[in-house]
């Protein structure tokens, strides 16, 4: 295969990926009150990673991000299940979520919700799974 001329996409990707990741994290955090959430945030993050795969060689990305995404997916599911179990420790039914308002040093009065932890699990599971699938198929030459 001849080496493709991909200077433009490489340059654009380097900038765009940062923006995509930032946007993904923003989507995740804003999910509580505004459009967004763990699923979309995770998927957007995964699409940023996929852009990296498409632009650069898979090996290069793997060297720079030495993460086993199967483990990420499993950890995500584990977190989600454990938040459910956590509710049982407080004598509530499985997967009960709660929230409260706290005064934090920098943010001031902030709402903290256990659902966010569950959402972290969702996001990780989505990132892990989609990247695992893409990498398995993309790697299969």
């Amino acid at each position, binding site marked *: 295969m001849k080496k493709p001329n991909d200077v433009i996409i490489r340059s654009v990707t380097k900038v765009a990926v940062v923006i995509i990741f930032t946007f993904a994290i923003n*989507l995740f955090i804003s*999910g*509580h*009150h*505004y*459009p*967004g*959430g*763990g*699923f*979309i945030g995770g*998927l*957007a993050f*995964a*699409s940023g990673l*996929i852009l990296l795969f*498409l632009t650069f060689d898979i090996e290069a990305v793997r060297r720079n991000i030495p993460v086993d995404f*199967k483990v990420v*997916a*499993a950890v*995500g*599911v584990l977190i*989600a*299940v454990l938040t*459910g179990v956590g509710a049982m420790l407080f004598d509530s039914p*499985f*997967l009960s*979520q709660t*929230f*409260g308002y706290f005064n934090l040093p920098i943010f001031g009065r902030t*709402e903290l*919700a256990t*659902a966010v932890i*569950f*959402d972290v*699990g*969702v996001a990780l*599971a*989505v990132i*892990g*799974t*989609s990247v*695992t*699938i*893409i990498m*398995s*198929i*993309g*790697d*299969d030459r």
Partner: protein
Amino acid sequence: MSFWLHVMILLPFLFAIAVPFIYKKVSPRIHTGWFVLFIPLVIFIYLLAFIPKISNGNTFTETVPWMPSFNIDFTTYMDGLSLIFGLLISGIGALVILYSIFYMSKHREALNNFYVYLLLFMGAMLGLVFSDNMIVLYVFWETTSVSSFLLIAYWYERETSRYGAQKSMLITIFGGLAMLAGFIMLSIMADTYSIREMISKASEISSHSLFIPAMILILIGAFTKSAQFPFSIWLPDAMEAPTPISAYLHSATMVKAGIYLVARLTPIFGGSAEWFWIVSVVGLITLLYGSVNAVRQTDLKALLAYSTISQLGLIMSLLGLGSASLYFGVGDDSSVYAVAIFAAIFHLVNHSTFKGSLFMVIGIIDHETGTRDIRRLGGLMHLMPISFTLAVIGSFAMAGLPPFNGFLSKEMFFTAVLNASSMSVFNADVIGLAIPIIAWIASVFTFVYSMILVFKTFGFRGKNKPEKLGRDVHEAPIGMLISPLVLGTLVIIFFFFPNTLSHYLLQPAMDAVLPTIAGEAGVLDIKISAWHGWNTELFMTLGVIGLGTLLYIYLKKWFPIYHLLPEGFTLNSLYNLGLEKMESVSKVITVRYMTGFIRDYLVYIFAFIILVVGGAMWLFDGYSFDLSKDAPVNIFEVILMTLMVITALAVLFSKKRLTAIVAVGALGFLVSFFFVLFRAPDLALTQLVVETVTTALFLLCFYHLPQLKKEISRIPFKAVNAVISIGVGVVVTIVALSANGNRLFSSISGYYENSYELAGAKNIVNSILVDFRGIDTMLEILVLCIAGLGVYTLIKLRPQRRDENEEAK
């Protein structure tokens, strides 16, 4: 309120977790069994403390909520019946583990597996006999089946072990499922899962239309577990398990679970003619079948397996005959039949003692001589005097001879069958006479195989000299003899002090089986005595001994009658044939529709949708739509629609895959514009990102595929495609329109509008995802994760591709 009974049931399970670690730490220096031994000992001692309280008529109940919303609580209940079983499970469990320490080599065997399975079984069995809730009982019931499967397949490298394990699993789980259906019917009738509450509603239940079906289904469960005819075929094959397991699961405890269930449910079902006839007739047939077949066995363990089947049949038939006492209610008649229940419980205990010790003795013989084949054994009497004595005690108790406990329960069994023959109810006049005759014939065969067991193994017979076995045969180590010695001693103690046993254990158990009669003083006051004059029972026993001895001496003369039946005409070959046919027929069916073409599978799926969904709509007049309430279609929607149609057509007619992928992606983006129009930003965002990712995925996948070729296909093929695709489109459109036009229920969206108060979130969609319907999301990401792993496995872990292999050649 204490939960010690729960702790006791869970103790073996909890310790099972620790066993592998202990094994890793101490093996092979110390035998893991020494650590496991404590568990049954502690439980046994704990249960012993209950004997005085139970014999005073107390019962104990403890409840731990499990699934309160389904009325399923883990309620434990202890009365005389469950106490006897608990003592058998823990007591014989302790002896078996002690025996296994010397039987299982700590150098060669995977002891961690062995003891984990054994503890699993012990916990499940304790849970089974002490739980009051039917669903909990069922869970433990199946757990015993599973642990039995694991233990039979313990030497899984042997094909016979795997065969036996599969057989026992198939049969007992089949019975268990039938039983579950019966349990559910019972719970529908009684409106409770608690066995005690069901017993208090017994009269309501007996007039319900589900009474007979529930009874039959539950009996199938009990019969499969207790190896009753015709489900008995799994037990001989289960003898592939290590001998301690055969002694424990397949003679003393697990196979008695069916007996336990029948006894436990007698207050509900007993007193009806169907229960009486099914239980006693199946029991009697099993008794005869088992004892006749035991005589022809040449493997000592197979002989014991058939004798166990036969003895289980005996106990079962006694429970059936005794259930008549509930029909008569309180009075003199009932106590006559209550003797049968008493004899059943008595014989159950006796059988566990003598059969347990016999299994252990056979294990010793196997261990020392290396064979269990009667045709090769002989003359061990002088070499193994202690084992010989134990074998005599066990076999003579089994044959029903004094001074061993089997004599007492056998006499009571004869009393019970004689009573049944003169019974005036349930149309028993004619068939009733056959009951004692069958019982007597079966007893003669029992006598014969008991004698075979002792004298063909230990006695001197012609050319079978122990020297021929090719190894130095000697008595077993003392540790191996302790357990059978304890059981053998009990066999004799029970003979001399039966009334002590009866007062503390058997009477309370009988009160539990016959609760309505138990209240009356004196009715159930049964005294056991070895000598009660020259009555019919004694003459029957003498007849058994006389004819049995004759039959044993002239065994060679009449043995050929076993060959009269054709070889293939057995239940076993029926089972094998069924298994074989099931495999081949299902293969034929599967090959027919699993073509390997994705197109075919899509055809099945879509045709199914058209038939079921469209058919249901058509049958139930579901397709009615009301467009009047719909919002008017505006210009943006029309434009979007037109674009979507164009992209969809572009997919169909594109010549290159790349074009098709891009067109599909464009279609997806257009859909997300619809979400924007309808003000669903979350959905639009998700759709956009999903579309991006899937398009990338498609591009990666299609990289591997060949160039799209011009399809040259026949007209009918294209016509089928067209019909299916148009059909799916029409059905989905109709469903969507009808669903919109007919609101059967009021909308539930109002509830979610309170998300800020309920979940502290202003984003309803997300709070539904993570909070209101959190369990859906949890399972979805689990599915997602599994799908990801599936893709990974399929691609990364597949065997080398065929063409690569061929290239390598």
